[in-house]
């Protein structure tokens, strides 16, 4: 059964917006932002490049090179806007869809493919880029972020923590516990909820009866709803929330109102539960097109600029593809590696027995 209410056709109330879908700059009394031409051009570049990486990953999955992919299509502005608001010392805790935030943290996109290709379960050091590992269990990372923020607090560090989750996760116990802990300990954390309207097949009405950002008031901290397809507004709102956190004013819940334009993952078929009209309505609010329109209208970029970005995106896509295909399969002994930090008798025993067993086959048992 499909949902008969195309959601998001009309903008919801209380939406912080600085750039309309038509590319018009609008003012907001609480969240204005000064952006140089260079900054706007570079935001545009980020939006285009992460969409290209995402498209390439979807193609790689369709060709059997990835087992699965969770597309960020439609959520680029929410991720680039919030990601670009982070200071180097801030820490980000993603779900498994934060490819745009990873990009802002300078994480090599190919690193993101490892878990979807099945060569590892994550494969990067969170401390390298202050970007935590992707978390698959819905909402678990919100508590890790609050704990990390409590550590920041104890260290007296000038840093904030941001944690990403979705409208579906807002129903999880861990997310609600995280709200409580952050609130009572006044932890320097920003809860960044990308409300993309759908938790696989379930619309947000199955998760909440009130607008998600209003949940914050029940926990005792501010909540704000931002146009998640407006990269300027996402940047401005997140920047302010992070600053408040660093200055000891505690947590903020940001609801980035956006739309999952693709499937939940490559295994999903959204035509079974939502109307095509809805997607068409949201295409008119595309996060990239409005920045392009703004740059064009205000003569801040010419066709040559856009062509160059497209060329760069194509080259990046090719590079990601080539390095994905070159990713080696791990050796069987990797099953036993990194399970424990210190020597563990059972791991040693099982590894030794299994490698001896494999060595009994011609060619060392490699498949």
């Amino acid at each position, binding site marked *: 059964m499909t949902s008969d209410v195309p959601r998001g056709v009309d903008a919801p109330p209380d939406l912080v917006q600085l750039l309309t879908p038509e590319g018009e700059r609008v003012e907001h009394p609480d969240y204005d932002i000064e952006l140089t031409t260079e900054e706007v051009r570079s935001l545009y570049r980020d939006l285009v490049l992460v969409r290209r990486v995402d498209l390439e990953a979807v193609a790689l999955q369709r060709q059997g090179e990835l087992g699965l992919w969770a597309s960020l299509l439609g959520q680029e502005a929410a991720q680039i806007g919030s990601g670009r608001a982070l200071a180097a010392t801030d820490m980000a805790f993603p779900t498994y869809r934060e490819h745009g935030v990873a990009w802002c943290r300078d994480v090599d996109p190919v690193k993101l493919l490892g878990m979807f290709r099945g060569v590892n*379960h994550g494969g990067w050091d969170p401390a390298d880029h202050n970007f935590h590992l992707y978390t698959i269990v819905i909402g678990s990372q919100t508590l*890790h972020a609050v704990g990390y923020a409590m550590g920041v607090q104890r260290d007296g560090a000038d840093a904030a923590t941001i944690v990403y989750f979705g409208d579906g996760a807002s129903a999880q116990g861990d997310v609600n516990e995280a709200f409580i802990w952050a609130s009572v300990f006044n932890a320097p954390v920003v809860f960044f909820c990308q409300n993309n309207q759908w938790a696989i097949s379930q619309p947000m009405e199955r998760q909440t009866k009130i607008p998600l950002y209003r949940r914050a008031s029940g926990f005792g901290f501010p909540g704000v709803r931002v146009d998640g397809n407006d990269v300027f507004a996402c940047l401005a709102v997140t920047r302010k929330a992070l600053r408040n956190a660093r200055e000891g004013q505690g947590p903020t819940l940001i609801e980035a109102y956006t739309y999952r334009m693709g499937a939940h993952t490559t295994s999903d078929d959204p035509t079974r539960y939502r109307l095509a009209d809805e997607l068409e309505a949201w295409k008119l609010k595309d996060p990239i097109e409005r920045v392009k329109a703004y740059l064009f209208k205000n003569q801040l970029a010419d066709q040559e600029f856009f062509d160059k970005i497209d060329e760069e995106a194509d080259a990046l896509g090719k590079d990601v593809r080539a390095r994905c295909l070159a990713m080696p399969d791990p050796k069987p002994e990797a099953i036993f590696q990194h399970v424990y930090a210190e020597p563990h008798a059972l791991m040693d025993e099982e590894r030794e027995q299994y490698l001896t067993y494999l060595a009994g086959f011609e060619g060392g048992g490699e498949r």
Partner: protein
Amino acid sequence: MTTLTLGKALNEGMRRAMESDPKVLVMGEDVGKLGGVFRVTDGLQKDFGEDRVIDTPLAESGIIGTAIGLAMRGYRPICEIQFDGFVFPAADQIITQLAKMPLRSLGALKLPVVVRIPCGGGIGAVEHHSESPEAYFTHTGGLRVVACSNPVDAYTMIQDAVRSDDPIIFFEPKRRYWDKADIDLAAPGLPLDRARVVRPGRDVTLVAYGPMVKTCLEAAAAAEDDGRDLEVVDLRSLNPLDMGVLEESVRRTGRCVVVHEAPIFTGLGAEVAARVSERCFYHLESPVLRVGGFSTPYPPSRLEEYYLPDLDRVLEAVDRAFAY
């Protein structure tokens, strides 16, 4: 030598750990002002402050989830779960996150989190306060699981657990919290992953851990009257198992009885029995036998004396082992 109860020995061990490393934290429900419902953390908040001994909200998943985040930031949290039966709201964070996150990072991330759980029955408590959930955690790769049985071990094992870079589930036998022993506070303990022969004997190896070690020692003392010399092995570490000590013991005695409070069915005793059988097959005079709880929920306290393995149940199993 200092005479301490098991509870006080844990307290003293945590105190030493906190003194030697400013990154060590204690967190849990009522652990600060109250000193924990069993007073195991008594006085720590007064001496180390509210930033290091954290009275948390009443949310077990939150305790473990935030401890993970604190560990990522370089802290070494000791979490207290108030009672065994209350660990399940935290089971998701323990099993899906704490156990697996280091592997996810290919070893870059270390999570030195200790989860203290008072376990077992025998104190006349209401439902959910007398359980033995160790097998749920020994079945999860990435966790180390240990159980202390006496004040001397409690004192060193808690310090070793805090020093370990691996996440550790630390079981404390709640009905033995008030048992006393003389402790040399300067003496190092046996490494955390080693078993110990606590009573040497020739005829049968009794394998136990946590609260059942004392029961087995009592059984061994009683068996002397029957002319039987029982060896008692305290496993201490439940994952990994110290098979070296077990193998050496059973090869000598030829008989093995495993004792725990948890249900026998798919309990830790099954693992010990299988491994001992594999390694000592030609030395065994009888099958490895098990004594433990029934495959039921823990009974109301007026029935727990029937449920819990005691001296007689252990000796009955010893008799069966000799009947082969």
